[in-house]
C-alpha cells in the first residue's frame, strides 16, 4: 500500500513538473515571436514636450567636450574641427520608447552622413554599461553601430547642461545639433521628446552645413 502511494506521489510530481515546464515553454514560444528587445522598453507615457531653457543659437561656437565612448577612449568635439561636420543626437535615456528606435534608423543610413562629410555622435546621460547593453540590442551579433555613442553620465549631464538640453528630471531633451567644420552651430532641433525628428530634416541640415 505504501509503495503504491510513493509511486503515485512520484507520478503526480512528474505530471506537475511537466505541466510547469510546458507552461514555461509556451510562454517563451510566444514572447520569442515578438519583436525581441521591444519587450524591455520601459513605458514612460506622454512627457512634457520640452523641459529646459535653450542657451545656444545657430551661429554660436559649439561648446567643446570630452566624453567616454562605449567603444572605449574619449571623444572630443574639437577632434573633428576642420575635418568633419558633426551631428550630435541627444536622446533622453536608454531603454525608453522612441529613443530605442531613433539610432537604429541612423545606423542604416551611414551613406547619407558620408555624402555630407559628417560624423554622428550619439549622447545620453546613461553610464557606459547601460549604453553598451542597449546599443548591442540595436544591431546583429558581432556588429556595432557605425557612430560613437558617448556617455554624459558623470558629472551627470554636464555636456547636456552646456548645450541647454538637460531636463529637470535629469534626462536630456531629444535634440539634434549640427556643427560645421569650423565648429559653428548650423542647426538646432530641440524636438518634442515624445516624437522622433524626421530623418529628412537632419539630412537637409547636413547638406546645408556641408555647403558652407
Amino acid at each position, binding site marked *: *500500500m*505504501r509503495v503504491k*502511494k*510513493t509511486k*503515485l*506521489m512520484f507520478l*503526480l*510530481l512528474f*505530471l*506537475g513538473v511537466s*505541466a*510547469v515546464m*510546458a*507552461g*514555461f515553454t*509556451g*510562454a517563451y514560444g*510566444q*514572447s520569442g*515571436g*515578438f*519583436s*525581441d*528587445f*521591444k519587450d524591455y522598453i520601459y513605458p514612460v507615457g506622454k512627457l512634457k514636450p520640452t523641459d529646459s531653457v535653450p542657451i545656444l543659437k545657430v551661429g554660436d561656437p559649439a561648446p567643446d567636450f570630452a566624453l567616454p565612448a562605449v567603444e572605449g577612449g574619449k571623444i572630443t568635439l574639437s577632434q573633428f574641427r576642420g575635418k568633419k561636420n558633426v551631428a550630435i543626437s541627444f536622446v533622453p535615456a536608454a531603454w525608453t520608447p522612441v529613443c530605442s*528606435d*531613433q539610432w*537604429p*534608423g541612423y545606423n*542604416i*543610413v551611414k551613406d*547619407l552622413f558620408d555624402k555630407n562629410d559628417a560624423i554622428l555622435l550619439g549622447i545620453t546621460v546613461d553610464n557606459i554599461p547601460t549604453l553598451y547593453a542597449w546599443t548591442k*540590442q*540595436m*544591431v*546583429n551579433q558581432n556588429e556595432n553601430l557605425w557612430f560613437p555613442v558617448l556617455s554624459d553620465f558623470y558629472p551627470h549631464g554636464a555636456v547636456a547642461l552646456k548645450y541647454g538640453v538637460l531636463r529637470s528630471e535629469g534626462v536630456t531633451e531629444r535634440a539634434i545639433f549640427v556643427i560645421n567644420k569650423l565648429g559653428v552651430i548650423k542647426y538646432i532641433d530641440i524636438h518634442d521628446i515624445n516624437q*522622433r525628428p*524626421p*530623418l*529628412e530634416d537632419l*539630412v537637409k541640415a547636413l547638406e546645408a552645413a556641408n555647403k558652407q
Partner: protein
Amino acid sequence: MKKHKLQIAASLLLLVITLLCGAASQGADTIKTVGSSDKPLLGKIKLLPAFELPMPQGKSDKSYMGLSGTGDFKLGQIKARVLIIEVFSFYCPHCQRSAAQVNELYEKIEGRPDIKEKIKLIGIGAGNSLYEVNSFKERYHVPFPLIPDQGMEITEILGVRGTPTFIAAKADGKGLLEQFYFGEGGFPDAGQFLAQIIKLSGLEGEVKK
C-alpha cells in the same frame, strides 16, 4: 501513524502541484493575450476598416497593385484576392533584420505563376515619413510597395502595437477586405508562412500544392 503522515504529505503535494499548474497555465494565458491582444486571431474573420493611403509614386509599385493615377487609394482597390500587409518601421531593428526574409516572401509569391496575380504584398511604415520609407526601400532593395504612415493613423486603425506586424486579408469581391491573419513579430520561414497564408485564405483548392 506513518500511513497517516504519508496521506497528509501526498495531499500537500497534490495541492502544491495543483497551484503550480494553475499558475503556469495562467501565465501562459497571460502571455498569449499579450502576444495577440484582443485583436482577431488566426482564422477569425473581421472586415478591415476602409481608409485611404497615399498612392506610391513609382510606376512599378502602381502596376504591381493594379492601380493608376495619383492621390489616395483604398486597400480594397488593389488587384488581388489576398493582400499581405507588413506594418514595419525604418527605425525598427527587428524589421531591418528581417527585411531580406520579407523580400524572400515576395520573391516566392512572384516566382509562382499560379499565385502571383492572386497574392500581393505591401508594407506600411508606422510613424515613417515618405523619405524614411524610401530610405528603407533603397537600403534593403525592397521590391514591393512601401507606404508611409507618418501620423500613425493607419497603424492605429489596424490595431498594430509593435513592428513588424503581419496582417493578411482576402477580397470579398465587392471591394472589401476580410482580415484572416494578424501576427506580431516576424515569421521564421518565408515558405512556411506563405503556405500558411494560402491555407488560411482558402486559396488552397485553387493553387498548386
